[in-house]
């Protein structure tokens, strides 16, 4: 069995599972945030009316909560959702609630790794499609809707069809100017936004061994844009070190068998990789940066669970150090822990000196919610993960998706720019 089959077999109490088997998997961790939490509360209200008991969760110690999409609240509905969420965690005795303005908090997927909320080998479900991100730690991590999350909260399990696995083998190290974001955009450009539909996308090979845990998180994050059920990397010592340094203990490593089966294997030569952007209006609409359209940009956005981890900010700072931005540039670290490190290590000063603004951790404009959404006809280069019409604001705005290096280089020139071409 491959790693996903092993995790799902263990979680469903079976000796062996194969693609297409339908199983009920016991869940190890569940996450909701300020959008899916109120959605689940609504489902609970409906269930109550149907006479279903919702007084107690199956295990509140396995549930954790993030405030990210609409914080800081810009208007009263969002503010009320936060109050709802806080009452919910209080009533159900959920202790791991990362609250805005009270120490560590941030984008849910970022908290999943920054706070070591999920461990290798676990089944982790979240009320958000980019729950796939956390598969980089070697967990089976998948996003679910409100009804499914409500079911998990009450029953501790959920059905899955065991997915087939696409294996992406990466050979060698990425060049300095190329990041994991470029690689995943290239992959999505090749297989399309439904190229991984219903399947696992697993990343391996010596290119992955070389890669930092944070880069692996970027890869798994955007498996969602290829339609995948989940993304995963087999955990290694780097993952153990990463999680241990964030307080985790009792980490056991699960790996696939030597004769594990994959439905398809793709190979990529890292040394040949180039910076890539995804043009409007789809993550699969990719182009090499040097061949991208010569458009006048209005804004550069360095934020989100995809593109505002510490490593991402470090990359942007490398470019922005000693330079000035030519367009509106917003940097939103993805969690307070990252914000703090960026401050301590002088990155925030670099951003501010360059003329960029630094905002609080939030999903904000990534999903067009608030805090810097785009006006009609505005064009943005962004380290986020989606660029469907209206994603970051007005339906007639445009978003180009890129790595933090490209977003920073483009901030300096006001055009889509390969970091190698900056003087």
């Amino acid at each position: 069995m491959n790693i996903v089959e092993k995790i799902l077999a263990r979680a469903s109490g079976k000796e062996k599972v194969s693609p297409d088997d339908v199983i009920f998997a016991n869940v190890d961790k569940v996450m909701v945030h300020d959008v899916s939490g109120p959605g689940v509360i609504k489902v609970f209200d409906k269930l109550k009316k149907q006479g279903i008991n919702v007084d107690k969760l199956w295990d509140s110690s396995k549930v954790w909560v993030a405030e990210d999409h609409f914080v800081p609240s810009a208007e009263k509905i969002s503010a009320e959702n936060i109050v709802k969420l806080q009452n919910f965690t209080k009533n159900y005795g959920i202790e791991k609630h990362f609250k805005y303005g009270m120490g560590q908090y941030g984008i849910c997927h970022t908290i999943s790794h920054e706070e070591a909320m999920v461990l290798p080998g676990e089944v982790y479900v979240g009320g958000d499609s980019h729950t796939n991100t956390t598969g980089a730690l070697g967990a089976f991590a998948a996003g679910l809707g409100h009804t499914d999350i409500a079911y998990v909260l009450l029953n501790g399990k959920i059905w899955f069809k065991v997915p087939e696995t696409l294996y992406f083998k990466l050979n060698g190290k990425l060049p300095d100017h190329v990041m994991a974001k470029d690689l995943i955009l290239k992959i999505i450009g090749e297989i399309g936004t439904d190229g991984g539909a219903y399947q696992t996308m697993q990343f391996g090979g010596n290119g992955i061994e070389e890669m930092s845990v944070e880069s692996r998180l970027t890869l798994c994050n955007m498996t969602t844009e290829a339609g995948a059920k989940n993304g995963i990397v087999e955990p290694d010592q780097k993952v153990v070190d990463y999680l241990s340094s964030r307080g985790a203990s009792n980490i056991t490593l699960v790996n696939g068998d030597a004769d594990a089966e994959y439905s398809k294997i793709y190979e990529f030569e890292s040394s040949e990789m180039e910076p890539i952007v995804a043009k409007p209006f789809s993550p699969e609409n990719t182009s090499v940066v040097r061949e991208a359209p010569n458009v006048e940009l209005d804004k550069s956005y360095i934020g989100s669970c995809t593109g505002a981890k510490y490593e991402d900010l470090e990359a942007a700072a490398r470019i922005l150090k000693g330079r000035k931005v030519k367009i509106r540039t917003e940097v939103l670290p993805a969690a307070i822990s990252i914000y703090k490190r960026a401050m301590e290590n002088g990155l925030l000063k670099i951003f501010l000196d360059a003329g960029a603004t630094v905002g609080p951790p939030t999903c904000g404009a990534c999903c067009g919610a608030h805090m810097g959404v785009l006006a009609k006809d505005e064009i943005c280069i962004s380290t986020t993960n989606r660029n469907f019409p209206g994603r970051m604001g007005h339906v007639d705005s445009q978003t180009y998706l890129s790595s933090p290096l490209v977003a920073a280089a483009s901030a300096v020139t006001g055009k889509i720019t390969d970091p190698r071409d900056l003087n």
Partner: protein
Amino acid sequence: MKGNVIKYEQDNIDTDVIIPGQYLKIHDYAELASHAMEGLDPQFHSKVKEGDFILSGKNFGCGSSREHAPIALSHSGIKAVLALSFARIFYRNAVDGAFLLPIEIEEDAYQGISEGDEIEINVQLNEIKNITKNQTYKMKPFSEIIGKIIEAGGLFKYKPD
């Protein structure tokens, strides 16, 4: 199930256009319905009738996990979405929450059915009848678990064996 078809002849209709991100904070189903499809078809709300169907191409519902998407469609009156394929979370949400039927069709139905056609869906026979054009197409059968959850009326009413 009988109704008229609203056709969007394109692939990858994503949740950002089905219900734009700014409405994610809303959990009132009627209000969500009033913004359904706003990102793609501002006329949707005025033309949709109770019992209508949506017909579309590949990968319908891709993007976010927001259950707001099937909720907004179902509370607009949509009983089923017919598409060449679906994104997985949209598909699950539609079935587990018993909001609407996600029906996978083949190219013949996609090409054959036009905007406004009256069709009848027969899940037992896996058949779609185009009453307007007097044609019949096959739909892809639901997998066993999906069939059972639909029959039960959603995941909470389904009793695993």
